[in-house]
């Protein structure tokens, strides 16, 4: 008798377990669905409507998109900001990731103090982007900022500049600050990539007489493609989302004269600033911009991943 009832209660409990397990993903799905998936879908749907302040008006099809691209000043602002995002990506890929790759390679050679250097490169990544922005704003200040003082001490007075006040240097200064911020993360990713290379492959190549540059090109570079792809995608997404640093250093107008504007800053102006002539269409236009940018990032990233997978298969 006793045994039978225990057995049936165990069976019951098992049935219960099988049923309740389906409740497990629900809390995550609710939070994620409400605050990540819904807003993106909603932003896309908003772009097809007319907006009066925060109130939704009539369905107007693609009118917001047409306005965004063909009406001034939006059209030129869009392409202006888009070019800046592209530059953001290119400079970060070349300067930040290039340097990170090389630094990762150096640390991989088991230099002394590797742990210290890794920590030193990484430390900036722990600061809030806002702190990074303000800190560099102080360093780059034309009157008392230490960069100009250092240049003077080095006898390079001719290079002194109002870095952030000059439309010619402001954007590149911001992008380089971003490189300063993200460098250490790249170093760690590339270092992990190098460490994941089977040592037999390198040894075999060395026995075949490969060294230096040849070794780098024929062995390391192809095997590092996955790490390079990862950093490429992350840098791409981050470049096209760039907002905080520009906002902290140059405000919501991308000063001076929109020379540091990015699509996300432009979007912020449309959605929350009063940069539209009437102020009435702001949310519709902002949503149209969000939709374009979202689809652009998604399509590029997906194509990139496809391409990356194909590459892997070939190797």
């Amino acid at each position, binding site marked *: 008798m006793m045994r039978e009832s225990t057995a049936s209660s*165990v069976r019951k409990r*098992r049935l*219960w*377990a099988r049923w*309740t*397990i389906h409740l*497990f*993903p629900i809390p*995550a799905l609710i*939070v*994620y669905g*409400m*605050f*990540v998936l*819904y*807003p*993106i879908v909603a*932003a896309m749907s*908003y772009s097809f409507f007319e907006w009066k302040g925060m109130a939704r008006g009539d369905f107007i099809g693609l009118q917001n998109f047409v306005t965004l691209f063909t009406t001034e000043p939006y059209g030129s602002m869009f392409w202006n900001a888009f070019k800046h995002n592209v530059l953001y990506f290119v400079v970060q890929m070349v300067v930040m990731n290039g340097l990170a790759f*090389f*630094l990762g390679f*150096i640390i991989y*050679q088991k*230099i002394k103090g590797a742990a*210290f250097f*890794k920590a*030193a490169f*990484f*430390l*900036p990544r*722990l*600061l*809030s*982007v*806002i*702190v990074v922005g*303000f*800190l560099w704003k*102080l*360093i780059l200040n034309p009157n008392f*900022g230490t960069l100009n003082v250092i240049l003077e*001490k080095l006898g390079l007075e001719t290079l002194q500049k109002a870095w952030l006040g000059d439309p010619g240097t402001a954007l590149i200064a911001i992008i380089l600050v971003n490189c*300063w911020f993200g460098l250490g*993360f790249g170093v*760690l*990713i590339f270092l992990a990539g190098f460490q994941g290379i089977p040592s037999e492959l390198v040894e075999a190549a060395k026995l075949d007489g490969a*060294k230096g540059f040849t070794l780098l090109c024929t062995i390391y570079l192809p095997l590092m493609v996955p790490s390079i792809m*990862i950093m490429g995608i992350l840098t791409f997404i981050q470049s*096209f989302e760039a907002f*905080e640093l520009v906002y*902290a250093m140059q405000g919501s107008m991308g000063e001076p004269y929109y020379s540091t504007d990015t699509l*996300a800053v432009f979007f912020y102006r449309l959605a929350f600033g009063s940069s539209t002539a009437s102020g009435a269409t702001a*949310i519709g236009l*902002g*949503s149209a911009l*969000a939709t374009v*940018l*979202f689809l652009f*990032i*998604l399509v590029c990233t997906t194509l990139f991943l496809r391409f990356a997978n194909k590459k892997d298969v070939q190797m």
Partner: protein
Amino acid sequence: MKQGVIWVRPFYYLVVFTVATISLYPIVLMILSSFKKSVDIYKNPLGLPTSFSLDTYRTLLAKIPFTTYFLNSLFVSIVSVVLIVVVCSLASFYIARFKFSWNHALFFIFLLGMMIPIKLGIVPLFILMRDLGLMNSLWSLILMNTATGIPLSMLILTGFFKTMPYELEEAARIDGAGNLRVLWHVVLPLMRPALGTVVIINFIAAWNDFFFPLIFITEKMKRTIPVGMMSLFGEHSADWGSLFAGLTLASLPMILLFFIASKQFMEGLTAGAIK
């Protein structure tokens, strides 16, 4: 083979020293300058402080309610991290351990979040938070941190769950333990390394977040540290000493934690990207 070796090593050291200096210099400058008087910063921006003075900190704390900002940040970060750990443990346990046909799709949906630039959904989010009555509530930030932290945390936890043997779990089930008990008493204790990673990644992100508090919080006493610092810059832009002190105070908790557990921090933040 031997040629080149003579100059390569010194060259490597030269490079890493230079880059380390550039990485650390602004942070050291920030901390040192915070102990200077504003006059000294103007007169001698590069020099060490002539005398260590805490005046800047006193002025700063008199000007802004830093303690409130700090407690707000702490509350938001801790609650967000706890929520992420709870909801992601449950969901990733489900996805990794039980074979249902929709698991793959579910996992994909969660991962999609890593490619979604959520800032672009800020207008609907603004309206949503307003309708939920969460404007100027720290809960708006907690919910955002939790939601945006889910994709990467799911990736890490699910990957880790998959590497774990089933035997222990089975044993517990035969003893009559339910799902929650299995997860809580058997599985999670073995997951400590992965959970540590999830905690660190999300704590850094929540602590430093700027965008969502900028939009959702307008009330002064509800600000978190990054937005509090932002306002400081606008209001007192002439007082450099206070500014450096503010930046230092905003960064110090993370820097101190990093000194205690730098390895975990570095492994934690990169764990999501390397699989």
